[in-house]
Every structure is written in C-alpha cells, then in structure tokens.
C-alpha cells in the first residue's frame, strides 16, 4: 500500500538535501544556522512518530527561534540566464506543459479510478489520505516526465527543489506551526471562552443585527483562528443555532451555507491562513508578505456585506 509515510520520507530527504547543500554553500552568510534549521525539519519528517513528543516540542521551539531571529537565509541562486531559458522554451514548446498538467491529472485518476484497486486484500492507495497520496503520485510522475522532457538528472531536480525551498524560507513552516497553535487553542478551550463571551454580551433583539453579528462573527473568528472550520462550530453554536434558528426560525441549511462562506471571507483577510495568503507571497517572491491579503480585501469585504444581505432575505426559504 502506498501511504503517507512514503511521502514523509521523500520530504525528509528533500529537507536533508537542502540542509547539506546549504552547509556546503560558502556564499550563504548564514550557512550553519540555515543548515541546522532544515536539518531539524528533516528529522521531524524522517523520524516522525518515533520522536518522543517532548523532543518534537523542543525541536519545534528551536526551529522557531532560528527562523524568528532571521538566521535562515537562502543560498546562491544558480538559475540559468534568461536567454538560455528562452531558447529552451522555444525548443521544447508545449511539451513543457505535459509534466505540469500530470499533477492534477494523476491526482484525479488516483482519487477516482484507482480508489478501489487492491493488491491481494490491501488497497493500492491509502484510503484515509486518498487525495494527498494521489497528489504525491502525481508529483512523482511529473518529476519523471520533467526529467525526460528537459533531459535533466534527478539530482538537478533536487537542486531546483532546494532553490525553491530556499526562496520560501521560513514561510514553509509557518502554516505547520499555526496548525499546532490551532490544536493547542482547542485543547485549552479557547473556542468555548469565545462562545461564552459572544452569547453573553451581544444584543440579538433585531433580526438584522443578529444576521450581521453571525456573519461578521464568523469572519472575525476565522481571522483570529486562521481556519473557517475552527470558527464554524463556535459561532454556529453561539449565534446561529440558538438565535437565528431558535428565535427567528431560520432555515438551518441557509444559515450553515452562508455562515461557512462568511468564514471564508475571513480566511481571505488573515495572515493566520498562511497556506493561502503568506506562502503564495513567498512563492511569488513578493517583498510584502501581506500583498496577497491586500489584493483580496476588495473582494472579501463587499462579499461579507452581500452575505449579510443574502442571509437576511433568504433565511426563511
């Protein structure tokens, strides 16, 4: 069975290679601390569950300190000059698109056609993580095709991956660490505390105020938690079900659908949703890490207003 463990090892090896290449790169002014950072992250993926939780916790804090004090720097970029790339693009043409499109195509084949394929009795692809495992297979297929189309060695591929990991730097671990914070919030009862405050102090005697409080509450709580899935149970349990459904007899399906979309408006506005907002800024090499959020505000804010109006008029459907 192909499971996530296989891809954890691959990613671990990629980080280990990033660490070694940075260590040997004398042009990197912070090569030792940079190598240590990626080396520790490699350990998280390679050792995985075998690490005692206390050690893993210390590892995470150490990585955060190295990154937080700006000791993670990119090495020298050994990209080809632009005219060489242009000539190569003209020579290879549309063939360059084939490996890039292999990722979504293989992901779709894996998660639909290969879903029930079994070898003996065990499924071929881990059914619990079907999409992610299919995407991993797609990435491997794309890598093989890319080596073929560009006539490069796999080692060159590792060098290119290191270049991209280096360019993103600490932004790679931010979503991971925020997910840890989210789990800790849940364990410490942060959601319960917010629900308590919201229900105790907001006046809900006008239907419009209740609709606005519900939608804005979803968005605001998502801005803080970085995840609509964390906000939905809290605000639906605090306002949606007791007030909108309980007092104003709203259709629960309308309340839920518009509530979740209001939470997504929040996702567009927060650096806490680092995967969607901060990582792309790093990936596109934008100096302002909030540039994507700023581009999304003119969509997110009017849409939140539209949601309030939609909820107000559609709630009895």
């Amino acid at each position, binding site marked *: 069975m192909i499971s996530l463990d296989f891809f954890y090892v691959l990613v671990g090896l990629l980080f280990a290679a990033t660490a070694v290449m940075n260590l040997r790169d004398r042009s990197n002014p912070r090569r030792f601390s940079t190598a240590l950072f990626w080396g520790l992250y490699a350990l*998280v993926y390679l050792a995985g*569950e075998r690490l005692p939780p206390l050690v893993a*916790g210390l590892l995470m804090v150490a990585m955060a300190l190295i990154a937080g004090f700006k000791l993670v720097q990119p090495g020298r970029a050994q990209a080809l000059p632009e005219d060489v790339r242009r000539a190569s693009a003209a020579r290879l043409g549309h063939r360059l698109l084939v490996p890039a499109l292999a990722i979504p195509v293989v992901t779709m084949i894996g998660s639909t056609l290969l879903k029930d394929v079994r070898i003996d009795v065990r499924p071929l692809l881990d059914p619990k993580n079907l999409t992610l495992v299919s995407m991993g297979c797609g990435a491997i297929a794309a890598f093989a095709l*890319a080596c073929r189309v560009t006539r490069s060695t796999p080692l060159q591929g590792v060098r290119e991956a290191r270049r991209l990991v280096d360019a993103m730097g600490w932004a790679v671990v931010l979503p991971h660490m925020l997910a840890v914070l989210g789990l800790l919030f849940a364990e410490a009862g942060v959601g319960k505390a917010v629900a308590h405050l919201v229900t105790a102090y907001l006046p809900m005697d006008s239907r419009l105020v209740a609709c606005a409080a519900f939608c804005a509450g979803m968005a605001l709580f998502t801005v803080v938690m970085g995840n609509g*899935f964390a906000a939905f149970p809290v605000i639906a349990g605090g306002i949606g079900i007791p007030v909108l459904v309980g007092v104003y007899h709203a259709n629960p399906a309308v309340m839920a659908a518009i509530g979740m979309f209001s939470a997504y408006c929040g996702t567009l506005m927060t650096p806490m949703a680092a995967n969607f907002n901060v990582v792309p800024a790093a990936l596109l090499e*934008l100096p302002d890490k909030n540039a994507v959020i700023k581009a999304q505000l003119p969509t997110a804010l009017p849409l939140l207003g539209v949601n309030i109006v939609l909820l107000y008029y559609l709630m009895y459907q």
Partner: protein
Amino acid sequence: MHNAVNLWPLLGIAVVVAGFLLRVHPVLVTVAACAVTGLAAAFPVAHILESLGSAFIKTRNLPLILLLPLAAIGLLERAGLKEHAQASIATIHSATTGRLLTVYLFVRELAAAFGLTSLGGHPNMVRPLIAPMAEAAAEARVGSLPEPLRQRIRAMSAATDNVGLFFGEDVFVAFGAIVLMQTILRAEGLEVDPLHMALWGIPTAVSAFVIHAWNLRRLDRRILREAGPRK
C-alpha cells in the same frame, strides 16, 4: 468566578493580534501564543511541550501539498516554462491581465464546484503559469511594468486562485466543509440535507465571482492608467 468557563486562554488570541499588529516575526508570534495559551490554561511546561510536539508530528501532512511538486516545477522553470507561458499568451492579442484571470477564476471555481480542487494551486499552477501569463499579458499591452504594479498583478493571480477555490468547493456536496456542518448541526439536533446546504451556497458563490471579476476589471484599468498604452 461565578462561571465555570476559563477565559484566560483568550490571552493567546491577544498575543496573536498584538504580534501581527506590531509586525513581530510571524513564527515567533506563533510560538509565543502557544506558550501563553498553554500557561493560561494552567498546563505544566512539560505538558505544553509534549502537546506541541505531538501536534507538530501529527500535522506534518499539511506542507506536503506545497513541497511535493517543487522538484518537477523547478526543473520545468529551469527549462523555460515561465518563458513559454509568457510567449504563448503574448500571441493572443485580445488577452488582458484581467480577462485572463477572470477566465482562470471561472475555470477554477467551476472545477472546484465539481470536486476537482487539485486543478490549480499555488505551487503547481500560479507560480509557473498563471502569474507569468498575467504579467506577460500586461506587458504585451503597455510595455514595461513599474515594479509595484508587477507585484500587484502577481498578488492578484494568487488571490484569484484562492477566491475560485474557496467559493467553488463549498458548492460541492462531498466537500469536507459540508460534512463538518452536517455533523455539527446533527449534534445540536438539527437534521439538514447536505444538498440543501450546497444549494444555498450558490448565491454567495455567484456573488464572489461577480465581485472578484469586477476587481479584475479595475486591475486592467489600473494597468492602463499607471503604465499607459504602448506607443
């Protein structure tokens, strides 16, 4: 204390808000918020570290979607994928940045609504193809771009991917959010048909498309205003 709810862990949220407002390094903010939240909930230090550690190991599937395509994408970039995408878009004379991104928004949102969420994404579509094409479409119209405008175009490319994904996928019945909503409402004694929830998402999904497409039109006008038509 007259109520049983412990409000102290909210200090963790305060740390996050203050940290981002004061522009402290986001990784430091996150770890500080972890420490404050744990201490405010009266967990012993060893327990906090153990919670962090097991959560860190458990959530290490998250970065996979970003990291796995990098080797392939890096090789293609080295072989000129961006340059090829830019040369292709420059031959379509009616293409503008806004129109191109509107088409991508439409395809991304529709595909996500049919559950095809992997058709797109920042590492495998936006960086190598969509953002370079959006830039090249603008350059074909106005010549060279001022740097802030170029960055705005890149940021809008990423934003378009997000908007299309978020407001498309929730219309798909088998999506995790719908399952989550059903589970939570059921726990509160409300039985809701997932199909109805998906259906009542459609007005917002359409509004998201209209609003974002309008913002993309504004981007086109800004490109003409700030860079001027090619002489």
